[in-house]
């Protein structure tokens, strides 16, 4: 018997599709939601039905608790999966779901509340005997003397923060006052809460996180770590498991700390405990995210588990299987995120219509995509296009596989980070496993002059293309393409009926 009959997915893009697939496999009818910008989106096409939830602006659609609860009621859903981002960590949303008599696929609202407050989470971890990043454990006032013991450079962080927002690096006491004002303003604007705290800026440091699954019967599974040290703007680009920096002793210590943090809150469902790991293998608690992570697939590849299916089963009350509790990972998995971002221009987001879309396939390759050819990329939403994951029996083979998979990947119409990723798999510090969070700043840098060999190859292609176009042998995207205009009209009309 399926755990639920109909499940509404309060998200979009690749993660909505990921949950749709889990629903299909569990025998649950998946219902999607869409803003007016997403009428033709892939996640709408793949669901059994889709409910309109508002205009394109996320505030009025994917972040509207009322619109989503309404959609769930209309569609007859008995559970809601929030995906990641949007409302996934909103205690108000979780409460509204439960108040509507539906099951929220996630932890209790109180847990979301207590962990959403990063300062409270820091205090909780400390009380549980887990090392935290040196810094303040109470809201920062205006007195810079509180920070004297931390040392510079330091990071100001929003207590209500997440996803890199409301963070400010401060290099000296003189820069503190201005940074404090800016961080508070940004935090207030983004989260409605201007509380900030300070942490010492550790460097070189790696970002390591531990995946947890907990059921409603007090059983907890620790499903290995992921190394997420390759970041731009404090957001992850690449993740791998196991971490090449973590030795068995450190792993045991990380797992023990993760267990302690989990035990200190009323947690069930999927969660991740994030740590920083310094060059001496000391780890420091950063935060606990009580939702599915973007990079959960890396853990799925090494454990063989389906984390989304387990999220749904746990929410329905199913206990974790013994085999899950005692699971050892196997092999090595790496994920790279394909973003509509320009790595040659500071990873600035790009927009437009995808004209060509070829994803790799074959042994050890998994692609979770949210778009396809002819998708229009809108600036309202996250620029994540797809997650490309590889699995092999060891790290060098996984790296070779990733390089091969990236060589098969072709995306036209928008600049993506694929060029950066292709560079990365040949970078000595990544290949050697010795990288830290400074990799992009130090090794990729900002100087990306076109080398003459690449320019000459581009010239060859453009010259041939113009010649072929003039002799009528090719009509490249950019000139008008037959069919697409009709298609849009037909699709829109069908959905409006």
């Amino acid at each position, binding site marked *: 018997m399926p755990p639920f009959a109909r499940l509404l997915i309060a998200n979009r893009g690749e993660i909505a599709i990921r949950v749709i697939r889990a629903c299909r496999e569990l025998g649950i009818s998946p219902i999607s939601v869409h803003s007016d910008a997403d009428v033709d989106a892939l996640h709408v096409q793949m669901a059994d039905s889709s409910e309109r939830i508002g205009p394109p602006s996320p505030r009025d659609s994917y972040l509207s608790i009322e619109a989503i609860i309404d959609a769930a009621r209309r569609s007859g859903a008995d559970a809601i999966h929030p995906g990641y981002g949007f409302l996934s960590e909103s205690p108000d949303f979780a409460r509204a779901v439960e108040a509507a008599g539906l099951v929220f696929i996630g932890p209790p609202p109180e847990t979301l509340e207590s962990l959403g407050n990063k300062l409270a989470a820091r205090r909780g971890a400390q009380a549980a005997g887990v090392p935290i990043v040196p810094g303040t454990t109470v809201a920062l006032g205006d007195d810079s003397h509180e920070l004297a013991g931390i040392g510079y450079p330091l990071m100001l962080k929003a207590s209500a923060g997440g*996803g890199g927002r409301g963070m400010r690096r401060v290099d000296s006491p003189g820069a503190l006052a201005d940074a404090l004002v800016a961080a508070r303003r940004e935090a207030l604007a983004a989260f409605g809460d201007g509380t900030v705290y300070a942490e010492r800026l550790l460097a070189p440091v790696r970002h390591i996180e531990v995946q947890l699954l907990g059921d409603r019967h007090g059983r907890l599974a620790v499903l290995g770590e992921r190394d997420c040290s390759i970041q731009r703007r404090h957001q992850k680009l690449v993740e791998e498991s196991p971490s090449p920096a973590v030795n068995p002793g450190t792993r045991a210590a990380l797992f023990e700390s993760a267990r302690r943090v989990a035990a200190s809150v009323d947690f069930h469902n999927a969660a991740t405990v994030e740590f920083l790991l310094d060059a001496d293998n000391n780890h420091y608690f950063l935060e606990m995210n009580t939702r599915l992570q973007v990079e959960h697939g890396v853990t799925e590849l090494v454990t063989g588990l389906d984390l989304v299916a387990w999220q749904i089963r746990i929410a329905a009350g199913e206990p974790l299987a013994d085999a899950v509790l005692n699971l050892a990972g196997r092999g090595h998995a790496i994920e790279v995120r394909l973003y509509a971002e320009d790595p040659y221009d500071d990873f600035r987001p790009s927009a437009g219509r995808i004209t060509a879309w070829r994803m790799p396939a074959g042994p050890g390759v998994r692609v979770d995509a949210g778009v396809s050819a002819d998708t229009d990329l809108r600036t309202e939403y996250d620029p994540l296009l797809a997650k490309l994951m590889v699995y092999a029996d060891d790290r060098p083979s996984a790296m070779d596989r990733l390089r091969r998979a990236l060589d098969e990947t072709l995306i036209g119409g928008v600049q993506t980070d694929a060029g950066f990723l292709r560079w990365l798999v040949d970078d000595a510090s990544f290949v050697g496993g010795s990288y830290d969070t400074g990799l992009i700043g130090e090794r990729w840098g900002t100087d990306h002059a*076109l080398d003459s060999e*690449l320019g000459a190859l581009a010239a060859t292609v453009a010259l*041939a*293309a113009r010649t*072929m176009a003039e002799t009528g042998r*090719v009509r490249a995207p950019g000139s008008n393409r037959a069919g697409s205009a009709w298609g849009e009209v037909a699709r829109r009309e069908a959905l409006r009926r």
Partner: protein
Amino acid sequence: MSDLEVQIDGVPVAPARGWRFEIVDPARGIGRLVNGLASMPVIVEGGASDWVVTIRGRRISVTVRSWRERMLAGADTAAAARAGPVAVRATLPGLILSVAASVGDAVEDGATLLTIEAMKMQNDVRAPRSGRVIEVSVHPGQTVATGAPLIRLE
């Protein structure tokens, strides 16, 4: 054909020796570069003189022009150089978060004029050259489309 000149960023570029381009999917502009020993998938978009070639994940804008087109373009550029004011336009649609420049301000090349939120990220719009702000067309909270004029510099 020998009449065609290829430029990247305004600099003439010679095609790579020994490589040729084969089209695989003409509707999508997918093809490959081959030289008998190696091959490399590429994408080409565009038409007439303006092409974008994606190689190894990097989009490269390439101009392919005949002698006649070069002459015409040369005249355009010269005309543009003579013109005075410059309009700063939105390169991405988004929400105006803040406007740092006011009419009358003298700004340096590269100075932040305003901030747009697009794709969940704050993007600073900077001055393309030094000059005086003669018009501010937007205000915080306003949503703008790609290409919308934001600010004019004299």
